[in-house]
C-alpha cells in the first residue's frame, strides 16, 4: 500500500516509482484530509504520538492544578475546628472531585503522556501501532475530563467519594446530577484507557527495533506495558459497575436498592477489583521512570534488571488478588479477611525488591545529583515510608482501627504523591530537553524539589498522627472535643498539614515558573545528550523529528545508547570504561545511514469526531435521550469515516503539493 511521507525537511527525496497496492482512491471525495504539520489543525487532527503525548501532558497538568485547588480548599476548611470555608455539601463534592481528578485526570493521563511520547522512542519505533486510535484515546480523555468537570456548573459535582459506595450513590441520597456526571465521565475516560492499553501493548510487543528482545526493553517501557495489561483487564470491571450505576440512576433499575433485595457489597467488590489494580496503574509508570533515571545518574545499569521486571509483573499479577483489603471493615467474614490480609502482605515482597534494587543501583555508582536524580531519590525515600505504613494495615485487625482515618490518607498520599507524582516530576525534568529542546533550570528545579518535598511531608506526615489519634476521613468539620491535648493534639497537626499544602502549592508553582524561565527568548538550546543517558530515545534529535529516527536503530544491549558511547577496555575481569563516541557522533552515524523509505500515516478528522460523540451521548443520558441518539449518529458516521479512510492522504490533499519532498514507499 502506498504510504506518503508528510513533508519533511530532514529526509531527502527518494524514488516515487514504487508501485502501490490497490487502495481506496481518496479520503472520500468529500473532504480533504487534514495534512497540516503546523498550526492548530496540526494539533487537532494529529495522530503523531509525540504531539498527543504533549497534549496529554498539558491537559493533565491543567487538571493537576484543578485538583490541587480542590485540595487546598479542603485543607483550608480543615485548618481549624468547625471550619466554615465550605458547606458540608460543597466539601463532600470537593473531596470526591479532588480524588477523581487526581487519579483519573492527572496521574493516569500524565503517565499516558510519557508512555505515548517515550514508548515508541524507547523501542525504536516511528509511531504506535494504531496512531488514529491513539488520537481517539487522547480526545476521549480530554472530553471525558471536561464533561466530568462541567458538573460543577450544572448543579454540583459528585458527592459520594471517589469510591462512590452504594447505596449512598443512589438518587435518593445524592439527588443532584453529580454522580451521573461522575459515572459517565469515567466511562468515557475508561474507553480512552482501554483503547490506549491495547494500542501500547501491541506497540511494545510488535514494533520493537531489530535486536530489542523483551529482556532488552528499557525498564520504563516494561512498566508501562504491565500497567497497560492492568488497564486492559481492570477497566471492563469498573465498566460493568458504572453501567449498573447508570441503569440504577437513570433508568430505575435496582442493582443497589436494598429494599429490592440488593447487596450493597456488590458495588464494593466490583469497584475494588478495578480499584486495587488501579493503585498499581498509578505508581508503576513512575517506578519505571525512576528505574530509568537512577542508572543514568549513577552511571551503572539497573541492579537486577530481570528481577525488577519480574517484580513489576508480579505486582501486577498479585495486585488482582488483594482487592478486598479495602474492605476489611465491611463485614466480609473472618476467612476472607484472613486470606486477603495474608495476600496483601505478600505483595510487599516484590515492592521491597524494587526499593532494594534501586538502592543497590546507586551503590558503587558515580552519583550526580541533578534535579531528576533528586526527585528519583525522593521517590525511593517517600515511597518507602508509604510502603511501610501500608504493611501496618495489611494486618487486618490493625486496619480496622486505621481504615477510613487520616492514617490511610497519609499512607496513600505517600504512595501516590511520594511514589507516583514525584516520579512524574522526575520524568518531566529528565525528559524535558528531549521533548522541547530546552533544559529546565537546574537551580530553580532544586528549589522546586525541596519545596515539594518539605511541603508534602508537612502536609501528609502529620496525617499519620491525626489518623492514629482517631480523626476519620471525609468529615467536613472536626471538633475540639475530640482533638486531645499536647504533642498529639489533632488541631495543631491539622494546622501544620494545611500550611504544608501551601508550601507544596508553592513548589508546584515554581515548576510553572521554571517552564516560563527556561523557555524565555534567548535561553540556550539543550545539548543533545545533557544527562549522558543510556536508552534509545536519546539516539535522535531534541525534540525528535516527526519520524523519530532517521534510521531504525539496531539494538545489541539493554542500555544501547550507553554502549555506543562507551567501551570496556579492561581485561581479565578488570573493567575500564572509556568514552569512545559523543552523542553527536552516534547521531551523525545514524543520520548518515538514514532509511530511504520513511512513511507515516496522515492525520485524520475521525478520532476527534468519534471522541466528541461520547460526551454528547453522555449528556443525552442525563438530559435528553434524543441527544443520545444524535451522539450515536455522529459516532456511527465517524466509525464509517474511520473504517473507509485510507492510512494516508492522497497526494492532492497536501497543500501545496510539495511534489518532490514526498515519497511513496513501502517499509523497507
Amino acid at each position: 500500500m502506498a504510504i506518503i511521507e508528510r513533508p519533511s525537511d530532514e529526509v531527502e527525496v527518494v524514488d516515487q516509482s514504487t508501485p502501490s497496492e490497490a487502495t481506496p482512491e481518496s479520503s472520500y471525495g468529500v473532504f480533504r484530509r487534514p495534512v497540516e504539520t503546523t498550526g492548530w489543525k496540526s494539533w487537532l487532527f494529529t495522530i503523531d504520538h509525540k504531539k498527543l503525548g504533549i497534549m496529554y501532558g498539558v491537559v493533565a497538568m491543567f487538571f493537576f492544578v484543578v485538583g490541587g485547588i480542590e485540595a487546598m480548599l479542603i485543607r483550608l476548611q480543615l485548618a481549624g475546628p468547625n471550619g466554615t470555608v465550605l458547606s458540608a455539601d460543597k466539601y463532600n463534592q470537593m473531596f470526591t472531585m479532588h480524588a477523581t481528578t487526581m487519579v483519573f485526570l492527572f496521574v493516569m493521563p500524565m503517565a499516558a503522556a510519557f508512555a505515548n511520547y517515550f514508548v515508541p522512542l524507547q523501542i525504536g519505533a516511528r509511531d504506535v501501532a494504531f496512531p488514529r486510535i491513539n488520537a481517539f484515546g487522547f480526545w476521549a480523555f480530554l472530553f471525558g475530563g471536561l464533561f466530568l468537570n462541567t458538573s460543577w456548573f450544572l448543579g454540583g459535582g459528585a458527592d459520594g467519594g471517589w469510591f462512590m459506595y452504594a447505596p449512598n450513590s443512589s438518587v435518593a441520597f445524592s439527588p443532584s446530577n453529580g454522580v451521573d456526571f461522575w459515572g459517565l465521565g469515567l466511562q468515557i475516560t475508561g474507553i480512552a484507557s482501554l483503547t490506549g492499553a491495547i494500542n501500547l501493548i501491541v506497540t511494545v510487543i510488535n514494533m520493537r527495533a531489530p535486536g530489542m528482545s523483551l529482556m532488552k526493553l528499557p525498564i520504563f517501557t516494561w512498566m508501562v506495558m504491565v500497567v497497560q495489561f492492568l488497564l486492559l483487564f481492570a477497566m471492563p470491571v469498573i465498566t460493568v459497575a458504572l453501567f449498573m450505576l447508570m441503569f440504577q440512576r437513570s433508568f430505575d433499575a435496582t442493582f443497589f436498592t436494598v429494599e429490592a433485595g440488593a447487596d450493597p457489597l456488590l458495588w464494593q467488590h466490583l469497584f475494588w477489583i478495578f480499584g486495587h489494580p488501579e493503585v498499581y496503574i498509578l505508581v508503576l509508570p513512575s517506578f519505571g521512570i525512576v528505574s530509568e533515571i537512577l542508572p543514568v545518574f549513577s552511571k551503572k545499569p539497573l541492579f537486577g534488571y530481570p528481577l525488577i521486571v519480574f517484580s513489576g509483573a508480579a505486582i501486577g499479577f498479585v495486585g488482582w488478588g488483594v482487592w478486598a483489603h479495602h474492605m476489611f471493615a465491611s463485614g466480609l467474614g473472618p476467612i476472607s479477611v484472613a486470606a486477603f490480609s495474608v495476600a496483601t502482605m505478600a505483595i510487599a515482597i516484590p515492592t521491597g525488591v524494587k526499593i532494594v534494587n534501586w538502592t543497590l543501583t546507586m551503590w558503587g555508582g558515580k552519583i550526580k545529583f541533578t534535579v531528576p536524580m533528586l526527585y528519583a531519590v525522593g521517590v525511593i525515600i517517600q515511597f518507602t515510608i508509604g510502603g511501610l505504613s501500608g504493611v501496618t494495615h495489611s494486618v487486618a485487625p490493625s486496619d480496622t482501627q486505621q481504615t477510613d482515618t487520616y492514617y490511610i490518607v497519609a499512607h496513600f498520599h505517600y504512595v501516590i504523591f511520594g511514589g507516583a507524582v514525584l516520579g512524574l516530576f522526575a520524568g518531566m525534568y529528565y525528559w524535558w530537553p528531549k521533548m522541547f529542546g530546552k533544559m529546565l533550570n537546574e537551580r530553580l528545579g532544586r528549589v522546586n524539589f525541596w519545596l515539594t518535598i518539605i511541603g508534602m511531608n508537612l502536609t501528609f506526615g502529620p496525617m499519620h498522627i491525626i489518623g492514629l489519634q482517631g480523626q476519620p476521613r471525609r468529615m467536613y468539620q472536626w471538633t475540639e472535643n475530640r482533638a486531645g491535648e499536647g504533642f498529639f493534639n489533632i488541631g495543631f497537626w491539622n494546622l501544620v498539614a494545611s500550611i504544608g499544602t501551601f508550601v507544596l502549592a508553592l513548589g508546584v508553582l515554581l515548576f510553572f515558573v521554571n517552564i516560563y524561565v527556561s523557555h524565555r527568548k534567548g535561553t540556550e538550546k539543550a545539548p543533545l545528550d545533557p544527562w549522558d543517558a543510556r536508552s534509545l530515545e536519546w539516539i535522535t534529535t531534541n525534540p525528535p523529528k516527526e519520524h523519530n529516527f532517521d534510521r531504525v536503530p539496531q539494538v545489541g544491549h539493554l542500555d544501547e545508547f550507553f554502549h555506543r558511547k562507551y567501551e570496556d577496555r579492561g581485561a581479565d575481569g578488570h573493567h575500564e570504561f572509556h568514552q569512545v563516541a559523543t552523542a553527536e557522533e552516534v547521531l551523525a552515524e545514524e543520520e548518515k545511514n538514514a532509511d530511504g523509505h520513511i512513511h507515516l500515516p496522515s492525520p485524520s478528522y475521525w478520532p476527534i469526531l468519534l471522541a466528541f460523540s461520547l460526551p454528547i451521548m453522555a449528556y443525552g443520558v442525563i438530559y435528553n435521550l434524543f441527544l443520545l441518539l444524535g451522539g450515536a449518529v455522529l459516532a456511527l458516521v465517524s466509525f464509517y469515516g474511520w473504517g473507509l479512510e485510507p492510512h494516508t492522504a492522497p497526494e492532492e490533499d497536501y497543500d501545496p503539493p510539495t511534489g518532490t519532498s514526498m515519497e511513496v514507499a513501502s517499509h523497507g
Partner: protein
Amino acid sequence: MSTATEQHDTHGDEHAEHGLTDLGYIKIAIFLAVITAVEVVFSYTQEQLGAAFLPGLLILMAVKFFMVLLYFMHLKFDSKLFSLMFYIGMTLAVGCYAVFLATLHFFQS
C-alpha cells in the same frame, strides 16, 4: 472431538496456520450441535441425573467453549501469544469473580 484431533494430526506443523478444511469445520459444528442437544436433554432429566447434573452440564459447556475457541477461532493453530492474551483475561475473570461470589456466600446456597 476425535474428528477434530485427527484432522489436526494429519496436518502436520507446516500447515498449522491453515486450521481445518471446510469439512472439518462442518464436523465440529455438528458435534457442537449434538452437545447442545445433550445439554438440553440434561436440563429435562435433572432428577434422574442427580449429583451428576451440575458437573455434567458444566463440562459440556466447557467442551463447547473450547471447541469454538480452539478450532473456529484458530487458537489451537495460531501463535501462543494470542492464547496468552485471551487466557490471561479469562483466568483473571474466572478467578476474581469466583472469589467475589465466594465472599458473598454464593456457593453456600
